[in-house]
């Protein structure tokens, strides 16, 4: 069985079926992207994976364990961290406090210091601003903080929901470089993105989502050269 297996997931908002039976897999060590237009259901899938939204039907297995009905806070100790859409950093707390909250489930102090220093090394701006209230950071800095905060829990699987949303092209590149680095260091990544070109360029495999269903799947390179994908998502 794959590292993360999603079987026949359905999610409804009242009578509206937003996700109509989606199945996909993520293997250990991969970067897998879910791409699709606005309203295709990408964020709904991310929220329901962590049970921020209830699933109507379907099963989710992680590392061989059934996590279909586990509440979100029990997923973190298993090694799943999510960077939610819109970053959702704690705006009224400082940068340092945000990072401490990321390590909420890790009790080892030495490990904490080591991890936080690693984040500061990767993003020196966070070190500079550690005492600053997080709401004062720019969008790109907030995304760096959100990703660092998620990494503080030492996840095996990182779920990234629209990491490039609302960022300047410069920051988009920084963020995608970081995703690749995180993956090279051994973290499996499931990435949801509207920026299909960027996502496909770093993804090992990808699924194309259209109105609640998976329309196509393939390697990142295959999909990048697929004519219908190019027309629909890459603007060529």
């Amino acid at each position, binding site marked *: 069985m794959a590292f993360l297996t999603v079987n026949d997931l359905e999610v409804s908002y009242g009578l509206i079926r937003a996700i109509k039976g989606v199945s996909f897999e993520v293997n250990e060590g991969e970067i897998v992207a879910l791409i699709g237009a606005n309203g295709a259901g990408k964020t709904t899938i991310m929220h329901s994976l962590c049970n921020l939204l209830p699933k109507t039907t379907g099963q989710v297995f992680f590392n061989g364990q059934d996590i279909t009905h586990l509440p*979100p*806070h029990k997923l973190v100790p298993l090694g799943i961290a999510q960077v939610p859409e*819109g970053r959702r950093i704690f705006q009224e*707390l400082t940068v340092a406090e945000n990072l401490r909250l*990321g390590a909420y489930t890790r009790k080892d102090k030495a490990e904490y210091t080591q991890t936080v220093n690693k984040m500061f090394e990767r993003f020196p701006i966070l070190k500079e601003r550690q005492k600053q209230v997080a709401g004062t950071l720019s969008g790109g800095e907030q995304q760096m903080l959100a990703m660092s905060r998620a990494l503080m829990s030492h996840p095996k699987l990182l779920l990234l929901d629209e990491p490039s949303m609302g960022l300047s092209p410069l920051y988009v590149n920084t963020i995608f470089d970081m995703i690749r680095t995180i993956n090279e260091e051994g973290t499996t990544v499931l990435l949801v993105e509207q920026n299909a070109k960027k996502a496909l360029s770093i993804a090992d495999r990808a699924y194309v989502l259209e109105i609640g269903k998976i329309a196509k799947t393939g390697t990142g390179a295959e999909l990048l050269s697929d004519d219908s994908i190019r027309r629909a998502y890459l603007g060529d």
Partner: protein
Amino acid sequence: METLINGLSLGGIYALIALGYTMVYGIAKMLNFAHGDIIMAGAYAIFVVIGLQGNLLLSAAALLVAILLCVTLGILTERVAYRPLRGASPLAVLITAIGVSYLLQSIAQLVFKSEGLPVSTGAASLGSVPFLGTNLKVSSLLTLGLCIIIMTALTLFVDKTRIGRAMLAVSEDRAAASLMGINTNFIITLTFAIGSALAAFAALFYLMQIPVVTPVLGSLPGIKAFTAAVIGGIGSIPGAMLGGILLGVIECFCQSVPEISPYTTAIEFGLLIVILLVRPVGLLGKKRREKV
């Protein structure tokens, strides 16, 4: 000076109650209108333990019993009445809270009847000390001192501990907090427990000033403390402290002037209206950015 100390100690009591309202509002996003009745329950617990033979030692023991009862009641109401409504419309939760309030009052009425029952906390025997030409009641000084200690401890707990940080996180963004591995239900239960423990302290301090227990004992201090929480900015811990102290001092000063003392309550609620007109979020309240 005497009025000021009395006002500060009354303000301390309001602040303790207001903290219960404001913390529950900040973290569970609901107005717990049954909070005042938790104080009433604590007052009856104190009555049962000490009756009329109160001395300070017995009062301390009664306080422990009251804390136990209030915390149990607080957790129980949250589990039974409020948790099933998580995610329901705020109006449904509000009505439920009012229902819980009447339920607690009715139970008290069934068990203890509706007449006021006198309690002796031993506060009167403490007498007063002369200070700069006035006499200060020792019970007021004691109340004030304990309120300051409790509020300092609470502030340190919220700002400096891991659980306190988790409370701040839940208060700002419950979903994001759960993604950090924080058990949000546990944090909400804990908040109710802390608020209820503070209510038990408030019950004892209240009885030290007005030593009669009735089933509606919690209503007026409850509504005034709620006013204090709103004046200070609901959801803000320092705001509740400031609002409570402010209201207590104003109340005592109004009552010390015979010409305006009949209008005390009107002045207090008038102040609420003025502050809300000038600063709708309260004195120390923060405008929350709407989440997209």
